[in-house]
């Protein structure tokens, strides 16, 4: 079954992670054929999650720490495979999971635009066509030709977001990164995302910022213990989320 660009389907998706400080094994263990016993049991990060997002939808994903939000995003991004179930995404998936995850610290901002574009599968010509817009959006000024090692975290964010926002995403996966920017840049990001959505892009946003989810997302999925606890319009999901978290539903502030 194929999916349309911007569409994303999770079917009964399950994924467990073993909790170990040292993640690799050693050959000795393999040869002796014995795994070290003990330690905590594997954590079921996704436990039969089904989700169907249509092109152009805006979906917030909320839940307590460890509820499976980030894991779900990494599964959707195709970074982590599933133990069971299936995931399908249509079109160009652009992920913003961590500030400047793909940055070369000794590369200048401009060089990192090329590196990051390439990481998303773009060629030189495609990146050059977007370069001016990206640099302008980032508001970095002369810093575009300084190594990103000299950047503040806000500058990192601006560059990372500027790149992600200009890759013609069909699906945008964003994990809690917008919080670093100042208010005016946050607004600019939200506007840019809104325009991409208007043009048909799909947004999946993981955030603990309830207000941001309410502003940006028409639909919200509440995850709890790796399962979908609620999936529906944000207006109904948020009260459910606040009850789940045991926090009082914030009263709307009258302007």
């Amino acid at each position: 079954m194929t999916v349309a660009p911007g569409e994303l389907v999770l079917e009964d998706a399950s994924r467990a992670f073993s909790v170990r400080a040292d993640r690799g094994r050693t050959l000795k263990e393999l040869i002796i054929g014995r795994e070290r016993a003990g330690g905590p049991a594997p954590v079921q990060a996704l436990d039969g999650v089904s989700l169907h997002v249509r092109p152009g939808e805006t979906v917030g994903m909320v839940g307590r720490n460890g509820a499976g939000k980030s894991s779900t995003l990494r599964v959707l991004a195709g970074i982590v495979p599933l133990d069971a179930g299936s995931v399908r995404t249509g079109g160009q998936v652009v992920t913003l999971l961590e500030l400047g995850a793909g940055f070369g610290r000794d590369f200048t901002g401009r060089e990192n635009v090329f590196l990051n574009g390439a990481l998303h599968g773009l060629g030189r010509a495609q990146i050059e066509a977007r370069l001016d817009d990206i640099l302008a959006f980032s508001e970095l000024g002369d810093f575009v030709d300084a190594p990103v090692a000299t950047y503040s975290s806000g500058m990192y964010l601006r560059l990372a977001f500027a790149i992600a926002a200009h890759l013609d995403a069909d699906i945008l996966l964003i994990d809690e990164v917008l919080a670093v920017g100042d208010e005016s840049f946050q607004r600019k990001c939200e506007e840019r995302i809104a325009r991409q959505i208007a043009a048909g892009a799909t947004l999946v946003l993981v955030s603990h910022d309830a207000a941001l989810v309410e502003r940006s997302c028409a639909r919200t999925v509440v995850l709890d213990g790796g399962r979908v606890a609620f999936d529906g319009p944000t207006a109904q999901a948020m009260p459910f989320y606040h009850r789940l978290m045991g926090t009082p539903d914030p009263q709307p502030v009258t302007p």
Partner: protein
Amino acid sequence: MIPGVAHRYLFEQMVRRELRQKYKGSALGVAWYLINPLVLMGAYYLLFGVIFELQRIPDFPLFLMVGLIVWIFFSQSLLSAAPSLLDHGALIRKARFPRETIPASVVTVQAITFVVLLALVGVVTIVLRGTLDVALLLLPVVLLALFAFVLGLSLAAAVLHAHFRDVAPILSAALLPWFFLSPIFFRPEDITGQALARAALEWGNPIAPYIEAVRAILYGGGAPGLDVLAYVLVGAALSLVVGRALFLRLQAELAVLV
């Protein structure tokens, strides 16, 4: 692998990043890529050329250098490829892209050093020994085969090390005796008259035929034997096919492992 057209640009960018990162901020910068192996070659020449005086071999320094360059490419590629996936863990955990570009770019950076050094030493060898021969046309074929051979092994080493953290230490422990068993500062026929032992030195060590092939062309001024050429080509194909298959099979969980 050699990444397809879609990811060739990514591959190019990763090589640039690799080149930039290694000796960042050092006064000599990229020159370190050449200085390290040159110092190593000087040390080995001192050891085998001066102290032990293995002078039965004519133009011993050139004999040594040509073999040593191949060995340095081989060993440095494996040693830097093995931990490469772990070194790029942040990238692997957060972005989706063909993972084999990481070890492939590491090996390519080593290959660039290798080609520069080989050009230097190769020209000097050909001039001093007068070994310019039509067999030189075979050199690109042999070098490509060597690259493929090393790349295949490096892919395997990288993905295995991500799964089993003792692969890199085992490798670095194994490479030292391996060096002394490789025909770098000796010719197998010089140290043993036994047919079996000689065959083991010449054919049992997979890097030996590559050293022999490069040396036959540059130092010997003739084509390597057909048996050596066949070994070199089959070894390259085998290493690449098996290394790549292993990588693809074991790469799924990389984002969790690194």
